[in-house]
């Protein structure tokens, strides 16, 4: 039996290896142009899929514009990239330009060059050049600019029109509130067991929306005090706990039965918080299964649409030996129209001209759904609240969320158990500064 198993496994392995062939992209880059800047430049970034491909293509555009600069690219998977970056920065070989997010823990440290003098030298009017909302978080309290944005992503609520029609409900509109959202999610839910159709999927981003939806906050502006126990914050968490209790949102077991994007694409959930980065994938998965649309996330009681954004940009390594080329690269991948148009295929570009023309005119692949709402949605969106330095406290907020949506505790009970731990985590951030 063991011999048979070994032979079978060897057979599968050999067959598969033989059947497959490598496909490496080694297209030569022929540059042309008259750039004055020259020398070596190392670009350090991470990611995957089409987004990474667009970053590589953007580098090709840079090479065309600055043919005398020899670019070395280091692209790695995102998981645990902080560990690599910590070591590389300490060793002084992290590259001249480094991909960053405004919430990354490495910011507000000694590693990065202040970009203000470069912006002033080139007389750049960033307000006129950058998409509204894309730039938040790159400038420190003391005015030091640590990075320039390249892309961002915010969220819309995608909804299954067929499920709404079946429930006899009107489609949501951009002026809906979170109370409307909650009521709608409950009304469109139907069925039992494996055939249950949920109002909203149990998406990982909802935890980030929760504290803000009734005007609350998870912590104050300088991260010195937790505000989880604020009544408005608690109300936000409780809304999602109530949705799980009403079976309008999958409980833990149901959520683990299949990925949430698949659940929506399979018509087993009426609504899905859709990020720009995943729009085309979700559209492909839905195919012609059902009719669908998107709407802005609901408004908080003050009438402000609540949205969360993820931003990506580039910073200049203070140890760079070719700062001129490094700035040229950062400027190109942030503000160049051709690059912005390229990014538009997968994300919301930082270059305003591209965002408001190319991106806004795009439709989600294979649909007639316009992308323009994503541009509007970015304006007031809140930077992802759990990244970078706040991640340790973020783990505790995650546990609070689990208490409410998995363990069935009330938001008040969960907050009682976690507020002091969260406060300690926030205190430790300030102590380690």
């Amino acid at each position: 039996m063991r011999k048979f198993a070994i032979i079978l496994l060897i057979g599968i392995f050999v067959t598969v290896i033989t059947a497959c062939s490598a496909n490496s992209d080694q297209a030569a880059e022929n540059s042309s142009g008259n750039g004055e800047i020259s020398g070596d430049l190392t670009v350090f970034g991470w990611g995957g899929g089409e987004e990474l491909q667009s970053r590589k293509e953007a580098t090709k555009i840079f090479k065309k514009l600055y043919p005398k600069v020899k670019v070395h690219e280091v692209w790695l998977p995102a998981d645990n990239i902080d560990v690599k970056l910590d070591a590389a920065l300490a060793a002084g070989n992290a590259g001249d330009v480094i991909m960053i997010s405004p919430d990354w823990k490495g910011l507000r440290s000694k590693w990065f060059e202040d970009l203000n003098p470069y912006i002033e030298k080139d007389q750049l009017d960033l307000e006129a050049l950058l998409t509204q909302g894309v730039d938040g978080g790159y400038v420190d309290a003391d005015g030091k600019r640590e990075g320039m944005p390249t892309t961002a992503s915010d969220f819309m609520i995608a909804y299954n029109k067929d499920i709404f029609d079946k429930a006899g409900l009107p489609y949501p509109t951009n002026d809906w509130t979170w109370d409307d959202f909650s009521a709608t999610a409950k009304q469109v839910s139907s069925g039992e067991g494996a055939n249950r159709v949920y109002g909203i999927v149990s998406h990982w981003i909802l935890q980030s929306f929760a504290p803000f939806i009734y005007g609350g906050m998870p912590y104050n502006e300088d991260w010195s005090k937790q505000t989880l126990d604020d009544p408005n914050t608690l109300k936000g968490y409780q809304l999602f706990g109530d949705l799980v209790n009403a079976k309008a949102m999958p409980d833990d077991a149901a959520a683990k039965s299949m990925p949430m994007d698949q659940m929506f694409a399979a018509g087993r959930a009426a609504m899905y918080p859709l990020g720009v980065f995943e729009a085309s994938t979700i559209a492909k998965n839905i195919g012609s299964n059902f009719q669908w649309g998107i709407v802005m996330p609901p408004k908080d009681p003050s009438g402000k649409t609540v949205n969360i954004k993820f931003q990506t940009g580039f910073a200049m390594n203070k140890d760079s030996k070719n700062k001129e080329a490094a700035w040229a690269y950062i400027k190109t991948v942030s503000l160049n129209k051709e690059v912005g148009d390229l990014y538009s295929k997968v994300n919301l570009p930082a270059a305003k001209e591209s965002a408001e023309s190319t991106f806004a005119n795009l439709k989600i692949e294979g649909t007639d759904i316009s992308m323009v709402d994503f541009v509007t949605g970015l304006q007031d969106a809140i930077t992802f609240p759990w990244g970078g330095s706040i991640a340790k406290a973020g783990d505790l907020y995650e546990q609070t969320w689990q208490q409410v949506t998995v363990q069935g505790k009330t938001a008040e009970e969960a907050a009682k158990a976690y507020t002091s731990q969260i406060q300690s985590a926030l205190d430790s951030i300030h102590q380690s500064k």
Partner: protein
Amino acid sequence: MEAYYKSKKNSGRIKVSLSYVILTIIAVVFIFPFIWMLSTAFKIPSEAYTLPPKIIPETFTWDNFIQGWQYADFTRYTWNTLIVTGLATIGTVLSASFVAYGFARFKSRYSGLLFTLVLATMMLPSQVTLVPTYLLFTKLGWLDTLMPLIVPSFFGGGAFNIFLLRQFFKTIPKDLDEAAYIDGANAFQIYYKILLPAIKPALITVGLMSITFHWNDYMSPLIYLNSDQNFTLAIGLQFFQNSFGSSQIQMLMAVSLITVIPVLILFFIGQRYFIQGITMTGIKG
């Protein structure tokens, strides 16, 4: 009396049967994720998430393997992983057994202290040594080469492996060494010709653990490698996951299956020695 023995025999049979039933259930629970991976790898996308899950695909396809493999240069990644795993394992087995031999057979005033120091390195979090090690390899010009993934294995082979092999060496009577000395063998010949063959199960155990570790290692390649041409399978797989997440689970499972098969084959081949190696370690401390 006969009835008593008959009833005892029956009760014994029931106990054995019950044990087998329980063991079978546990085995099924443990093997289910692998079976699911195997089954999903051959499914078309629409079948990957059907509820309840189907173990045997309705439409059987090889496309997941072909498309998944073509997504990146997995052939090169496999080759790099084979080089790293092969050489690092040779280094681990040789150097760990050499150091363990020293600790097991040669006593000095500081042997105990030195051995404690070796064991203490297991307590050291990897974060503590990361930056100095990275700096060292940068200075040596080894960054973005396979050297940092291979060469350290030739310098000690890891505290746990040294401990494991030392325990094994200590189970072998010293009379063997003494007989060899009388016959004119030196210390190295005793190590190489007498003791190493005697601890084959332990060497295979250490080898298998080293293979599994280096084959699956993600952190070291991530930290020391920069170029696509040097990447290992673990990095390739992570890129794949970053790119598709769970949306192409059937392709991810197909590529994962290919990467896990060599380790499985080795485990099947060496499991007898592996179990023997682990169980015998506790004989003498």
